[in-house]
């Protein structure tokens, strides 16, 4: 379904352009949206949609596929999967900015595709809901831009600094550690890969995450989180939200009240298309994770590619069982053959 919206924000087009591309500032304007990670053009996150008694949570990725600064046009492609169901949602959002005096007119064209039970049950409501979401987003964005002082391009950095300063001497002492790469923790390769893939490069990045956020990362389970916590504690640091936390959570603190670890782990399985990650036999380096794949409009892109391996692993034993009669028959045949040969040799 195609949706079209337009709104006007009270800032010059150059600034609106910068803000719209700054995902971490724009995301809170989307009702129910939570950012999990931002790595270059790749964004991973979640969105919770509530319609009356119905609640749907989609986890997925988004990617800027077009950034035409000259034409002031950008395209964001997003696709996600229901965390507690089999439905998928994908959207291609193209925004065009036009300057009008000191204001900016933004035209947003969204192509939305929803599958699964919400789509069937919704009987067409998804268009309505999608339209309302974009409408609320536009309103929030306009009020955020209007409320901000005209020049605050380094806002994200500023807030970081206040956080650190507010934490007293202890964290300042640990400040130098925060700039160190996560390599110094000597983490297991899988955990290290998972962190790196989610944009966690330094200890500073790491301690802004809560254990729940880490659990949501592919290939990081409770054991890895405990390990990370231990190694951080050796350096006098800790994960956000945990007792040993030496630094307050960064901007990511706004993440919705974290669900239990098991729930997140379940979500992670769901996000992988139901294939438990630990069954993947291939090294993770060889298998691009779903997040790294370019987002396409087909929900198929969410099927994990190690499906075949899993199927073999699961079906191996039954296949052997089925081969048992054939093997027995073969052995019997060999025995008969041997017997016949012996008799022949005797008769000679």
């Amino acid at each position, binding site marked *: *379904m195609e949706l079209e919206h337009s709104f006007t924000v009270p800032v010059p087009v150059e600034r609106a352009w910068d803000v719209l591309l700054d995902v971490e500032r724009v995301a809170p304007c989307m009702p129910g949206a939570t950012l999990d990670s931002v790595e270059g053009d790749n964004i991973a996150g979640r969105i919770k949609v509530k319609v009356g008694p119905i609640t749907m949570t989609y986890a997925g990725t988004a990617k800027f596929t077009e950034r035409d600064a000259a034409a002031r046009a950008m395209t964001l492609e997003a696709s996600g999967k229901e965390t507690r169901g089999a439905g998928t949602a994908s959207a291609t959002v193209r925004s065009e900015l036009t300057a009008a005096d000191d204001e900016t007119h933004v035209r947003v064209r969204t192509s939305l595709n929803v599958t699964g039970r919400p789509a069937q049950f919704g*009987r067409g409501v998804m268009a*309505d809901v999608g339209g309302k979401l974009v409408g609320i987003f536009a309103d929030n964005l306009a009020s955020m831009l209007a409320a901000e002082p005209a020049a605050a391009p380094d806002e994200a950095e500023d807030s970081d600094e206040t956080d650190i300063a507010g934490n007293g001497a202890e964290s300042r002492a640990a400040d130098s550690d925060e700039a160190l790469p996560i390599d110094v923790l000597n983490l297991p390769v899988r955990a290290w890969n998972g962190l790196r893939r989610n944009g966690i490069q330094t200890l500073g990045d790491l301690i802004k995450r809560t254990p729940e956020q880490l659990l949501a990362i592919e290939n990081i389970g409770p054991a890895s989180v405990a390990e990370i916590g231990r190694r951080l504690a050796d350096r006098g640091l800790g994960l956000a939200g945990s007792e040993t936390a030496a630094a307050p959570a960064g901007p990511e603190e706004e993440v919705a009240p974290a669900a239990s670890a098991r729930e997140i782990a379940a979500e992670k399985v769901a996000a992988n298309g139901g294939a438990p990650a630990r069954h993947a036999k291939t090294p993770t380096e060889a298998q691009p994770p779903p997040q790294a794949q370019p987002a396409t409009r087909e929900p198929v892109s969410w099927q994990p590619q190690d499906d075949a391996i899993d199927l073999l692993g699961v079906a191996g034993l039954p296949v052997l069982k089925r081969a048992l009669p054939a093997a027995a028959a073969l052995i019997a045949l060999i025995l008969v053959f041997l017997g016949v040969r012996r008799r022949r040799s005797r008769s000679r």
Partner: protein
Amino acid sequence: MIPAKFDYVRPSSVADAVNALADAGDDAKVIAGGQSLLPLLRLRLAYPALLVDVGGLTELGGVRDNGGELVIGARTTHYQLVHDPLIAEHCGLLAEAASTVADPAVRHRGTLGGSLAHADPAGDLPAVVVALGGTMVATGPNGERQIPAGDFFVDYLTTSLGPSEILTSVRVPKFGKDWGYRYEKFHRTAQAWAIVGVAALARRSNGQVAEARVGLTNMGPVPVRAAAVEAAAAGAAASAEAMTAAAAGAAEGTNPPADLHGAPDYRRHLARVLTGRALEAAAGV
């Protein structure tokens, strides 16, 4: 499918039920017949932490004659609506529409209050109560509140009921013998939701339609009155041509959904055709 885990209470009074809802905050749902809520739970589209069962509250049942109006308890089932003598006499449209809801099993369990509070745009009874000009009576922590039907439905599956308010009864005006009525429902298979439904009431006098009321089902996120049709029908001759002409504006100001069952244009067409038929029948043509 098995629903997600939830707590369940069965209070013995409306006050207890309101307290239970207030304690649970946003995450509680009222359950009566469960004919809309249980499918949502089983499909895991809804995950309330607490269900407050009002099925045992006798104060929510029964149909009462209150002078110029009927007071219908929220727990009244569709079956009771169809067979209640007071409703048959004063508010036949409600009985007729209730008889088209789903199948007998659903009609025996599903309730008027549940259907209204669920506010499914494809549900039949919301448009009927809107056409009748009914008033919802809700009880919450701050006591009782009266909500006109037109203000009750806010959005898709959303009403103006607060999270700890319970719909206790519906007041509908009595319609005399000079009123004719018809609920026209179009669905492709028996027991399906209405693709479009039209509830029409018409008062006839001297071969003319003196007054008409038309409510539309599934022509937008909430049930709506077809104001253009009501205006055109008032004072028109009670003839098939005049009613068809009046029905031409049935889709005005509506925002019908697009889904597997039909595109918005198809629904607008249906609304015009069904409104014509419903008005003809209501006007006794």
